[in-house]
Every structure is written in C-alpha cells, then in structure tokens.
C-alpha cells in the first residue's frame, strides 16, 4: 500500500486539531454538565459537524482545482449524490413509522400512489450497500463524465461550463417527482441511523466526530496523492499540460483518476452531511453551491489542502454569522469575497501565513494560463 505521506508542520497541526476535535467533542457535548462554560450545546455540535463536511468537500475540490487545474463546478452534484444515497438509507429506516405507515415504501411514494419500490431504491435498507453507493454513484458519474471530457481534451473554462451544465441537468432531473427521489421536497423526516436516533445528542456528537475523522483521513489520502510522483505529474499537467503529454504521460488517465477520487470524497462528505442537517433536496445540486465551494478553497489558499479546509470553515462561519445578524448583506459580502480574494489574495489565508516564514513554497503561483485568444496564436 501507499506509505504514509511525509507531512509538513501545517499538516501535523491540522491532523492534531481534527483528530483532537473528534475526541473532545463527545466529551464536551455529553459528559460536561450543560451549565458549564465548556459545554457544547447541541446546535453547535450540529453546526460544526456541517462545517466538517464542507471542509471535506473543499479538500476534494482543492485536489482537482488546486493541484490539477480542473475548476470543477460539478462537485455540488457529487456531494448531493452522496447525500441522496445516505438519505435513501435513512428513508428506508423510517419503515412503518411514516405518515402512511407503509413498511416498504417511503411516504412520498405512497403519496404518488406508487405500488412498488423502484429498482434504484433496492438494497438501500442495508447500511453497507448504501455506504457503497455513497462512493460508487459519484465515482461512476465522475468516471463517465471525465472519460469523455478529458479524452476530448476539454479544458479550462470549457470544462467548468460543461461540469456546471451537468450539475444543472441533474438538479432538474431530481426536481421531478417521477424521477423517484422525492422531487421538490427531497428526502427528510429521518428517524434513525444504524438503530440510533438521528436527533439525539449522542448520535449528533458521534456524527461530528466521524466527520472530523473523515476530514483527517481525506487530508491524509490527498496529501499522499499530491506528494507522490503521480502528484508531481498532476501539478505538471496543471502548469503545462501538453508538455506532459510529450513526455509520454497519458494526461487523460491522470486527470480521470484524481477527478474520480475527488468525486468520491465529495460524495462521502455529502453522506455525512445529510443525517446532520436532516434533509436532502434538489437545491443541493445548485451550480451556485459548487462555485461557493470553490471560493472556500480560494479563501483558504488553493493547492494547500489545509487551506481549503480552513477556508471552508472560515467562510461558513462568516455565513452563519452574517445570515443571523444582517441577512440582506450576506450576498454582498460573499460576492465581495469572490472579487477581493481573486484580485488581492491569490494564495489565500495560507499564503498570508507563508509570507511571514518563507518555507519551501508549494502553493502555486497563479501561472498565467494562456487565454483562448492566445492559444489560437498562429492560427491562420
């Protein structure tokens, strides 16, 4: 198997924080008395758990965008597909406790007067099967999509737009009732997961810890990938794709692998997200969500992994704060963030850290990708 990757100081700190949080949260949420200053109220557990899932999504996105230059606007789709797979498991766990008390069919199917469980729903009563699907469905979609797109050398903004269109098409499909995944309302009213009540404080704390551990694991896997020779080749592809091709590397396979790994990671993030927020609906597919995730990465610093996770937590914390205090200004703030970060902070928050102590620079300087007009240079 792949050896443990060598870690820099930032990586070690990151692992200590995430694993420490995973260990500490259940104690603070469950053991410490509720009136203590250290107690973690349930809503904070849920909120932080959500942030962890976003951070995994950001790490996944950084893997393709920061290291391979693929600005995917399809990651909200992978996230949502993972979430739907988990949601389907949770729906089937409701069993006869639904409004219509049908032991097999979820409520919305009874409501639509369906008689049988659609094939797509088979097997989802099993947690193992659902967990497999959490990874398999986004992975397969990414594989099929990437296989076509990378082979035909769709790059740059073209690729971004096509991934965005894919996400949009999926969103439309999931909005339809006859698509069989709850239509507009999505999947909700979950009761329990592996026999534990989803709403209970203990389950929430456990889900948080799992998410934090998943984040640590995602980081480790991503780090191992980017420091390997494969990772070097991927960075080379980001900076000078055709040169890599002339060295004899099959660029499409390199891109495909990292794209699929990233999609699976996003799917897992979505799967952890759904039981914590209690709902999954088609609006999770919104292409806008993908772009928002990209800005988390940009804020933290692309091509740094740790920065991506940091950015996800920072931006979402700001979002929680803003939408609570002055909701009408949040979009101004978010929009401004997009503009300011791209203009003035190309290396993100991590870049600010590195300014102080010049370490071996890993984050990419935004190499001018030749614009389309330039690429057509010499055209006659």
């Amino acid at each position: 198997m792949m050896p443990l990757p060598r870690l820099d100081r930032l990586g070690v700190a990151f692992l200590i924080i995430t694993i420490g949080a995973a260990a500490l949260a259940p104690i603070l949420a469950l053991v410490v008395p509720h009136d203590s200053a250290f107690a973690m109220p349930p809503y904070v557990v849920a909120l932080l758990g959500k942030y962890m899932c976003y951070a995994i999504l950001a790490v996944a996105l950084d893997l393709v965008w920061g290291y391979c230059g693929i600005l995917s606007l399809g990651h909200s789709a992978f996230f949502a597909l993972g979430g739907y797979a988990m949601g389907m498991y949770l729906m089937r766990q409701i069993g006869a406790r639904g409004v219509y008390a049908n032991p097999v069919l979820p409520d919305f199917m009874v409501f639509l007067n369906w008689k049988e469980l659609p094939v797509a729903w088979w097997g989802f009563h099993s947690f193992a099967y659902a967990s497999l699907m959490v990874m398999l469905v986004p992975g397969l979609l990414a594989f099929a999509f990437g296989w076509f797109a990378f082979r035909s050398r769709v790059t740059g903004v073209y690729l971004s737009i096509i991934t965005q269109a894919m996400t949009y098409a999926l969103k439309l499909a999931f909005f339809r009732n006859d698509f069989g995944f709850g239509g507009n309302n999505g999947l909700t009213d979950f009761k329990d997961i592996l026999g534990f009540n989803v709403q209970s404080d203990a389950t929430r704390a456990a889900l948080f810890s799992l998410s934090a551990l998943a984040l640590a694991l995602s980081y480790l896997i991503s780090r191992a990938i980017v420091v390997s020779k494969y990772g070097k080749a991927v960075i080379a592809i980001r900076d000078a794709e055709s040169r890599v091709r002339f060295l004899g590397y099959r660029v499409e396979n390199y891109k495909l692998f990292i794209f699929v790994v990233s999609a699976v990671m996003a799917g897992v993030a979505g799967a952890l997200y759904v039981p914590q927020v209690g709902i999954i609906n088609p609006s999770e597919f919104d292409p806008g969500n993908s772009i928002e995730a990209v800005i988390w990465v940009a804020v933290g610093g692309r091509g740094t992994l740790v920065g991506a996770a940091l950015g996800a937590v920072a931006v979402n914390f700001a979002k929680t704060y803003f939408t609570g205090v002055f909701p009408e200004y949040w979009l101004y703030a978010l929009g401004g963030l997009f503009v300011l970060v791209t203009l003035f902070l190309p290396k993100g928050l991590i870049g600010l850290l590195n300014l102080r102590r010049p370490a071996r620079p890993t984050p990419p300087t935004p190499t001018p990708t030749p614009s389309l007009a330039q690429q057509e240079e010499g055209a006659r």
Partner: protein
Amino acid sequence: MPLARLVAVLFFLCCTTVARADAVDDALAKFFDDKFPRTEQAINELAATGAANAPAILDALGDNRLLIDQADHIIVYKTTGDDLINAKTGEKLDGVDAGAFKKVRINNALRSAIEAAMGALTLANPDPQKRAGAAEAVFETRDASALKALEAQLSHESDPHVAELLRQARAAIVVLDSKTPTADRVAAVATLKARGDQDSQSLIDQVANQSDDPAVKAAALDAKAAIKAHLAWLSVLQNLIYGISAASVLLLAAIGLAITFGVMGVINMAHGEMVMLGAYTTFVVQSALPPSLLQWSLAVALPLAFLVSAIVGVAIERLVIRFLYGRPLETLLATWGVSLILQQAVRSLFGANNRQVSAPNFMSGSFDWAGLQITTGRLWIVALAILVFVALQLALRATPFGLRMRAVTQNRRMAAAMGISTGRIDMLAFALGSGVAGVAGVALSQIDNVSPNLGQGYIIDSFMVVVLGGVGNLWGTLLGATVLGVANKLLEPVIGAVLGKILLLVFIILFIQKRPRGLFALKGRAVEA
C-alpha cells in the same frame, strides 16, 4: 351572457330599422294564442325574419319574460332590469303595470326550438365575424336543427370565409346522417378533410367507424389518413415555431457572451445579470412614462437598457476583469461574485418579488396562421434577434472597431504589435457584449418574470450556445442557438423537457469530442507555451 346580448340588441334597436316588419308582425301575432304549436310557429317564423330584435324576444321567451296582453293586443318583454319593452316597436313602456300581462307559456320542446332559432339568427347576423362564430358553434355542437338555417344562409352568403365555415358546419351535420345521399356525404367528408384539424379528425373517425355505406367509409378512411398526416406535419411545424422562438431568445442572451468570450477568452458569469438589468430598465421606463406613452415604452427602453448594461459591463471590465487577464478561471470566480452583488443590489432596490412589465398593444395577443398558433410578442422577439444579429455582423464586418476586434480575437499579441490598443478593444467589446445583453433583457421582460434571478435562468443555456457555436464567428452563435432552441422544442413533446435538456447536454459533451472548440472554431497551428 343574456345581459350582454340584451345590450347588444338594444343598441341595434336604436340604430337600425327593423327588418321586414310585416313578417315580424305576423310572427308575433301567433304568440297571442299562447298555444304550444302556434308558439313554435312563431319562434321559427321570427327566426326566419332575421329581425334585429328577434334574439331579444326569443331570449325573453326562453326566460319566461315574454308577456302578452291579449285584450289590448300588446306584446312586451321584460328586461333583466324589470323594464318593459314593446316587442313590436322596441319602445320602453313607462308606468305600465306588469301585472296586467300574462306570460307566454313554454315547454321543453319549445326551449330547444328557441335555442335552434337563436343559432340560426346569429348565422344570419349582419356582422360576418358573428356569422363565422355561429357557424363554428354549429360545427362543434353538430346541432341538426340548425341545418335549415345553415343552408338558408349558405344560399346567399357573400363572405367566402364565412361560406367555407358554413359548408364545414353543414358537412359536420350531414356526414353522420345516414339519410343523406351518399354523394352528399362523400362531399362532406371531403370538406372535413380540407379543414383537417383535430375536430374534423374525431368526426371522420366516427364516420369511419360507424358508416355502413362503403363509399362513405372509404372516403372517411382516406380522409382519416390524410388528416393524420396533416396534423402530424402541423404539430412538427408548430414545434418548429416554438423552437425558433426559443432560439431567438437564446441568441439574444448568448450573442453578447460570444463577443466577450471570443475577444477576451474569459467567461463573464455576470452576463445573465446584464440581461436582468435590461429587464429592470424596461420596468423603470414603464413606471416613469405616462400611460399615454406606454406604446412607446419598449422603444425608449431598448437604447436605455443597452446603455445601462454597457456602463455596468465596462465598470466590471475596468475594475475587475482587467486585473485578471490571462487567468480565465479566476475571472470566472470574480465575475460570479459580481453577479451575486448585482442580484442582491437589485433585490435591495426593487424587492425580491417579480415586477410587472406590460406589453404594448401591438405586441400582445396571438393569431392563427394556416393552422399554426403564433404569439405576436414572440414574433417581435424573433425580429429583434435578427435585427441585433445583423447589426452586430455589420458592426464587426464594416467598422474599423469591428476590424480591430476581430484582429484581437484571432491573435491578441499580433494585434497589439500592430498598434491596436488591446485594452481599449477589451473595454469596448465588453461594452458591446453587455449592452446587447441589456437589449436581450428588454425582450425577456416580455416573456419572463422580471425578478433578480432572471439572468440565472439563461446563463447556462447561453454558455451551451457559445460552447456549441465556438467563438470568433457570430454565425456559430446563430447556428448554436438555432440548433439548441429547435432541438429542445422538438424533443420536448417526445421525451419531456427535462430529459430533452439532459439529452442535449450529452449531445454537446459528445460533440465536443469531435470539435473541442465548437462549430466555427478558429483552427490552426497553435503554439502552446
């Protein structure tokens, strides 16, 4: 309805002389007997006179409002406003006690007689449009009792269009009547076949199923096939029209994007918001103009929308995009941020709800053309799209600015080396592209909800058009918009809107395999760094 009819009748009573007064008198006289057979005669005779006040009288009879004073030989009817009107003269009777009169009795048989007579009366109405409407009504009800009136009117009908409708109505009645001679029925089938719409189809179906006359049956079967083919063809044409309409909208939304993308190689994610600003400009113009000038509101809004969006576009280019030159993906992100800000700004200014933008009279409504439904507003948008396309082609082909812009599109460095100020061209291209988006917004305000999210709905489709069409050539954009718009609408009835969209997306992904830079991409020996 009765009230409206009454008002119409009163109007006629005042303005027209009563036709064939004697015949009317004779007919009215029969009411005094108040015997059912006599009353029926009276109804039919009255209808046959075609007198202008006949409908009012018959209407009153049906409602038990026709009153007679057998002693004084006066016949009156009561309006819904309880006024008494002399049926013979149409004068209003004041100070007369309604209690002195007796109602003319009717039964169900008479009621249907009245109904038939009313239909016949409208068939004889002096207004050709009313006659056409009545003929259509008969066609739909296939009321055999109207046959006589139909034939009577047909014998002296002067308007060819109405005559055709009358023939069709007659055909609809006789075609199912086994007592009609074969030749007449076959002719009726032919008439229905010529009409060739859904109603004729179901009628012909009935004939084909029921008729025991072999000649009629054969004719019906033949007509059935012909109508089916005709209808299928018509539905394809109709969808084609919808497709062209959709394509014109796509073209308007995408063509500005194609310009900025072509010249600068960057995707402006705020392009949809330029469209949205154009739509809001239309709203503001309509609110500011006095109602009397509403007809001109769009004409005023077009240049203003161009200006507003162009100015905002230039601001974006100068303040943001300029600094991200050579980093197209960062540009995509930054402009997305701008789009969020613009949406929220419009929401703060105008509220989150949809704003009402009205259509000038000449753009509202729809008409029928050779069996096809055409919406006037959509037709104007197609015209606008063509106009914008031609204007842009001229601007790019025939002006010095266009020449420079094409030069920058094809080879930026070479153009710069030849002394073209590429920064200025970028700015002007952005102004042009954004301005055109504003113009698109004026058009879209007519067919879509004017809300802060307006632009979002079009941006992805516009991107698809540009991806399909390629950059550097507006013909590509035109073709891309047409292909996507028409394919979408042709697929929609077959596999549904969503599946159609997904299928088109798959098609675009496969298409990009073959031509990664679109239909009309510049091709050449690219020196990659």
